[in-house]
């Protein structure tokens, strides 16, 4: 098993290499590049300047040379700089965008499993009932739905007409889990010293006492967890908050705000998945229900619920669970378009924008990351299958 896993992981290397070569070649063969766009948008840029810039970025060389260099840097963990975001492409994608996409994807997957699996079970147990026909019909509608259209319709109903949910984005403007502390610097004067202490941070402020005609130090203790923007030499004034911190209430408000923005994209992304899970669960359970051991269980005189949930369902869930891995590429595809419709700043939107901007380093990182996710998901599926079903052995 370990041997097999290692072999599969080793096999990912050439596939990822091939994917990177393919994607890089296609990207670089595109007409125009980042500097061409810059030149078009900036009439003051001279041809000489543009040429210099191209040489600096290595854009004057043929694509395979650029690929060789890119690969050389990439294997050392350097994926280049995003020329729109002005930060390393990997940092941009992983730190700023990946979390949002994972949140959206995980939410959609959970939602679709929670709805799809029970629906599928009901549909199979009551085969050919009205419920079964209705479920089957909606499942067909579900996976025939164009995600982007469904997303737009959700937007129109819930944002434009009912105005109950925001039309898109990640969170409300300036939303942050950090709120200003109630405690304030009740003094006027320069900060002379900032030192960490066991119970927080001590900030010493020098106050000039007009009555005494002399300056004296006043020490404020900022509780741990408070993020303060004062530095040595800054003047503080009465009423100025110590800084910002996370409280339970502020965190909850922020989480609720994020949730409000997540509802529509998650539903839009989940709808196809729900349809798939329903159909799949139904088929898997029907397959098992006709097996001999289920008939035996019934013949023993077990209650129907026990037959279904103890004997049949357990076996029917095996192929369903393994398919979770295989559903990831579908989620990824859906996420790209959902994020674009709802302007949700995840990897999908980043990819779309970086392609429009010809800012290719983040696009490479995202595509490779997505390819890696797909490959790992396939591997996990196979391994899960082997673990859950003892009949399968890898050598």
């Amino acid at each position, binding site marked *: 098993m370990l041997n097999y896993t290692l072999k599969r992981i080793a096999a990912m290397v*050439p596939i990822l*290499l091939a*994917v990177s070569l393919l*994607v890089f070649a296609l990207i670089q063969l595109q007409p125009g590049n980042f500097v061409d766009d810059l030149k078009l948008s900036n009439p003051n840029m001279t041809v000489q300047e543009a040429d210099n810039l191209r040489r600096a970025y290595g854009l004057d060389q*043929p694509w395979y040379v650029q690929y060789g260099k890119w690969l050389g840097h990439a294997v050392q963990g350097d994926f280049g700089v995003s020329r729109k975001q002005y930060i390393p492409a990997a940092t941009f994608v992983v730190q700023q965008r990946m979390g949002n996409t994972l949140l959206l994807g995980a939410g959609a997957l959970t939602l679709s499993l929670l709805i799809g699996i029970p629906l599928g079970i009901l549909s199979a147990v009551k085969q050919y009932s009205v419920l079964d026909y209705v479920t089957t019909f909606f499942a*067909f509608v579900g996976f025939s739905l164009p995600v*982007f*259209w469904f997303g737009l319709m959700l937007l*129109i109903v819930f944002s434009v007409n009912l105005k109950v949910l925001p039309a898109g984005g990640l969170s409300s403007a300036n939303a942050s889990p950090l709120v200003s502390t109630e405690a304030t610097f009740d003094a006027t004067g320069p900060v002379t010293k900032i030192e960490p202490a066991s119970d927080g941070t001590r900030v010493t402020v020098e106050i000039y006492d007009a009555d005494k005609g002399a300056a004296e130090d006043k020490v404020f203790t900022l509780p741990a967890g408070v993020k303060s923007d004062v530095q040595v030499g800054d003047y503080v004034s009465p009423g100025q908050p110590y800084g910002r911190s996370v409280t339970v209430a502020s965190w909850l408000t922020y989480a609720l705000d994020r949730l409000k923005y997540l509802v529509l994209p998650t539903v839009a992304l989940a709808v196809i998945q729900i349809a798939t899970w329903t159909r799949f669960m139904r088929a898997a359970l*029907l397959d098992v229900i006709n097996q001999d051991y289920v008939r035996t269980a019934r013949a023993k005189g077990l209650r129907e619920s026990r037959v279904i949930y103890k004997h049949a369902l357990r076996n029917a869930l095996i192929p369903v669970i393994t398919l979770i891995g295989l559903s990831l590429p579908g989620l990824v595809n859906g996420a790209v378009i959902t994020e674009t419709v709802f302007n949700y700043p995840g990897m999908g939107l980043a990819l779309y924008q970086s392609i429009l901007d010809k800012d290719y380093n983040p696009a490479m990182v995202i595509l490779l990351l997505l390819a890696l996710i797909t490959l790992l998901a396939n591997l996990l599926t196979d391994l899960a299958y082997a673990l859950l079903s003892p009949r399968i052995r890898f050598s």
Partner: protein
Amino acid sequence: MTVTGTVALEPRRASGWALIRQRFLKHRLATVSLVILALLILLSVFAPLIAPYSPSQIDATNVYAASNSEHLMGTDALGRDIFSRLLYAGRISLLVGFVVTILSALIGTGLGLLAGFYSGQPLLAAVGPFSPQWAGARHTEGRSFWPKTIIRWLVWAALIAFVIRATGQFASVADGVFVTVTWVIGVALAALIFYFTFIRSIRLDIDSVISRMIDIFLAIPTLPFLLVLAGLFSNPKIGLGVTLDQWLGPARSVTVIIFVLTLFGWLSMARIVRGTILNLRNAEFNEAAIGLGASDARVILRHLLPNAVAPIFVQITLDLGHAIVAEAALSFLGLGIQEPTASWGNILNGAQEAIFQQPTAVFWPGLFILLTTLSTNYIGDGLRDAIDPRSRG
């Protein structure tokens, strides 16, 4: 016992297709879907006769009109009649869908047949590193194997590096040396990894080559990659865009989208055909045909292919739905069919920009897409049940 005879009396081979047709027509939703799809096709084909307005007729005095008796589905940002545009868009969207599906079916079936039939037989190309000896088919135990292989790879790596060196332009000699060395090392490394992961464990036959190709394509998330690809041709101002524009004129974006979608469209078909053929290869009729001395081509085309027709047709219906949604998605993102040519996707794109002025305009193009995909999915379902009644679920 009068009941027993009825089943056996049914003629077996002759009425195969008639039986399938009978069973298909019993699937009510599939039959209705077939009618709806036919209607959609007819509406698009006869768009010039049915459409009340020209799809490009601009009316600046009547933009964002709501549905009324003159404009059945209202007008868009330029005052064009949405209903007429949707009918004309159907021509493009359905054309793209059908052409992509047919091309994918041809490519997928062809490669699937080859992969399935020749699975396990080493590739005969004795060129360079891909010779049968090297691929592990025979003579691999010989002592001279290792040095020979390494030398062959180095020769290849140097050759590739030389070609690159000859065609590339480098900023300096040092730069050229750096890149060349990187390439030699890179190619040799990649080759070694490739060798150890694929060829040593799996013998290099045409099946491995095609299957590995499918693996690589499947590892690429389709839609993001299609974005990259469609972006490649989407710029009509510079480079490749100009060339394509000269060749194809207004049809450029349609041809490009067909190409791009076909590139990924054949994968599932190839996998399904390959699987079917691998199963059929052990069937007795196949062995009988080979035993009688039939040529490979005859066995593949006359004996194996006809037996794989059922899954191929089912896959075609599913692919049709996928292709239409994919085209709509790309056009919706602005990277597919370009204005002024109308497609369901780019009408939706236009409607999205006016989502606050005219929310209803979003509904109609999506409805056309949904009706098409829903009916293809139901037709596929009906076809599957009709061809293989045991699969009914």
